[in-house]
């Protein structure tokens, strides 16, 4: 149950916030409110029904953000630690707002703070935090699988807020929420993901989620930035941006991480933009109601032209707004709903 100020809404099977009900097949939500897994480390931890449950719960959470007093008592008395080993303005702020709106007690620890002792291992930091009995640890870390290690060492639930090149599950969930909001469904849409596929945790989470919900996923980028064996991931891979854009319902651009490129993957940003940059001209091949997404932060003039980022198809700011609602839903379903 999701207690709100007026006490009328709850997660599963509830009437959704305005415009939330998808026009596709109504999801069957037989799962009791809550998630099977202790932690959210990967989209692969979630069944399709659980993904839908999170999205429907997030729809309800969005309503909280429209109130004058943007706060519900759902996580009152719960402690959430935001443990960030990588700088992240957006994700960290988004989690923090979500936690505050749910009335959780929050503690922010960044690797740059003195609180994360220099040289202390992740295992020791997590075990020290565990001694303070937090309910949830939101972990952002530069190493793939850091959340798996943390989860083995503590009872607190771990939410992966990005682990190296592995995954960023709440980003994929907020992307799906945004797509559903605009398209009414995910199933059957052509979603093209363009950019640095190899190093992208956003790609990995999105592929799992979009495939679970039945989207057709096309991935496009230079051959040097592909994952091996993309078809095994259920993804059509192409190095032709025109082919990727053709009839796309959704175009998701991935950040080119300049610091990783070292001249090995493509010769110059200029050439990258010429071959793979999203421009207004290229967009003409897409569906007329195509939406443009970007997980941020953007490199304008590299993966995306400013005219596209700021243009009418862009839903980039909606993604940011939806980030708070999705994180509220995940926090609620992990900490709140499972409470006996």
């Amino acid at each position, binding site marked *: 149950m999701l207690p709100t100020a007026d006490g009328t809404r709850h997660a599963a099977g509830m009437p959704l916030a305005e415009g939330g009900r998808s026009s596709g097949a109504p999801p069957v939500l037989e799962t009791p409110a809550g998630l099977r897994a202790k932690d959210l480390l990967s989209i692969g931890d979630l069944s399709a029904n659980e993904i839908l449950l999170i999205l429907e719960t997030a729809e309800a959470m969005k309503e909280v953000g429209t109130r004058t007093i943007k706060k519900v008592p759902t996580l009152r008395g719960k402690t959430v630690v935001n443990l960030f080993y990588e700088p992240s303005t957006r994700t960290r702020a988004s989690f923090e707002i979500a936690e505050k709106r749910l009335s959780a007690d929050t503690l922010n620890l960044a690797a740059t703070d003195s609180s994360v002792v220099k040289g202390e291992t992740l295992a020791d930091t997590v075990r020290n935090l565990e001694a303070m009995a937090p309910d949830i640890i939101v972990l952002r870390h530069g190493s793939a699988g850091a959340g798996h290690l943390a989860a083995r060492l503590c009872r607190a639930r771990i939410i992966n807020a990005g682990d190296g090149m592995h995954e960023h599950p709440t980003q994929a969930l907020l992307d799906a929420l945004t797509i559903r909001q605009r398209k009414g469904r995910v199933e059957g849409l052509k979603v093209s993901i363009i950019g640095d596929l190899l190093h992208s945790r956003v790609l990995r989470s999105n592929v799992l989620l979009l495939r679970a919900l039945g989207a057709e996923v096309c991935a496009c980028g230079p051959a040097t930035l592909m994952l091996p*064996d993309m078809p095994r991931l259920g993804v059509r891979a192409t190095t032709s941006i025109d082919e990727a854009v053709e009839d796309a319902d959704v175009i998701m651009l991935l950040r080119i991480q300049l610091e990783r490129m070292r001249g090995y993957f493509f010769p110059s940003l200029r050439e990258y933009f010429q071959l793979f940059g999203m421009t207004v001209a290229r967009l003409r091949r897409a569906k007329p109601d195509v939406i443009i997404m970007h997980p941020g932060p953007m490199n304008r003039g590299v993966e995306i032209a400013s005219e596209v980022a700021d243009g009418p198809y862009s839903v980039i700011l909606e993604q940011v707004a939806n980030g708070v609602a999705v994180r509220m839903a995940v926090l609620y379903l992990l900490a709140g709903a499972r409470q006996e």
Partner: protein
Amino acid sequence: MSNSDRTMLKGGRVVDPVNGVDGSADVLIDGGRVTRVGPNLGIEPGTIVIEVPRGCVVCPGFIDMHVHLREPGHEHKETVATGVAAAVAGGFTAVACMPNTDPVNDTAGVTKLILARAAQAGLARVYPIGAVTKGQAGEQLAQIGELRAAGCVAVSDDGRPVANASLMRRALEYAAMFDMPVIDHCEDVSLAGDGVAHEGHHAAVLGLRGLPAAAEEIIVERDITLSGLTGSPVHIAHMSARGALAAVRSGKDRGIRVSCEVTPHHFTLTDERLVGYDTNYKMNPPLREAVDVEAMLDGLRDGSIDCIATDHAPHHYDEKLVEFDRAPFGIVGLETAVSICLDRLVHAGHVPLSRLVELLAVNPARVLGVPGGDLSAGAPADITVLAPELAVRVEAAAFRSLARNTPFDGWSLRGGVAATMVGGRTVYVNTAVPGATSFDQRA
């Protein structure tokens, strides 16, 4: 008991492929050496008689030609003493230890220290492997002649490859003067980059940087070509990729002096195990794909793989309890290898016991040019006694090794070690084998 006392191993199945023996026989040991092997040998007065337990198999002592004993310099991971204790408990009568210690074994002083520690421990024989290059830095040849004189049996820069092809060529030429093989850890470092797991589907999904099989294959091809050029023997350490095996096969077909080894984990496990990011599945070369495992089994069956070696790589648990990409490579293997080989190779029907003895005893002795590998009259009485039907449950907490970093903890396996003898002296008895206490010569 002194070594000059006569001991008779009575009534076991003896498997000694070099002498074409595979059947019921007794083994007479005198002065630490085998003196006779044959059925129903007469017992002279004063002979200690050890009744070999029913079902047990007497083999020439197993030699693990690739271990890391960590001493000097990393004694928190393993010492020579704990390493040889693990070796004999695992059925190995001898080990050859890699030089990537601190300091590196690139001088006679380090070699002698290792040998002195081994003599103090008095368990398995220890054959030090010297460095190919000074400090294993890959720039200048180490004092290979001095290392040979001090007791090294081979040279290797294991932990890393000899990256420079010109230096590798000279190393092959130079070491051959001393009848020492060069053992190479085959990895093209520029292609491997900062990879941590086999490049393929699983690493991709898990966001782990890849170590492509091609990085191994390229250097195997190069080493075989250089062995052909120089006429010197080269030994390929811990082969894992099917393309590397194909290269070895083709090299052997052309008469090139190439030999190779495979580890138990590389013919047992695949990169599917990476799910969960357990750092006990992190080793270099990495666990590869099912087709590679199949290829390794093929090579073990058809003889193109010469040896099984563990690449026993102990690490302290703190060092492994970190993020996957920060963990050191390597797992321990001495105390699990024989059970895995019996279960996964012999009982699974891939190789007969006599072939396993070739892989674990005969061929390692030949490649290293050390005594052992057979039970001929006059050979050292280094003996591994197997209990092929023993039900074994791997329990890392009970290892003699200081380290616990094994992916096989909790595995149930069929087959184990009953006893280990070095120079005619029992150095290990497995009390879980009924009747094995008869090996205790103090009785």
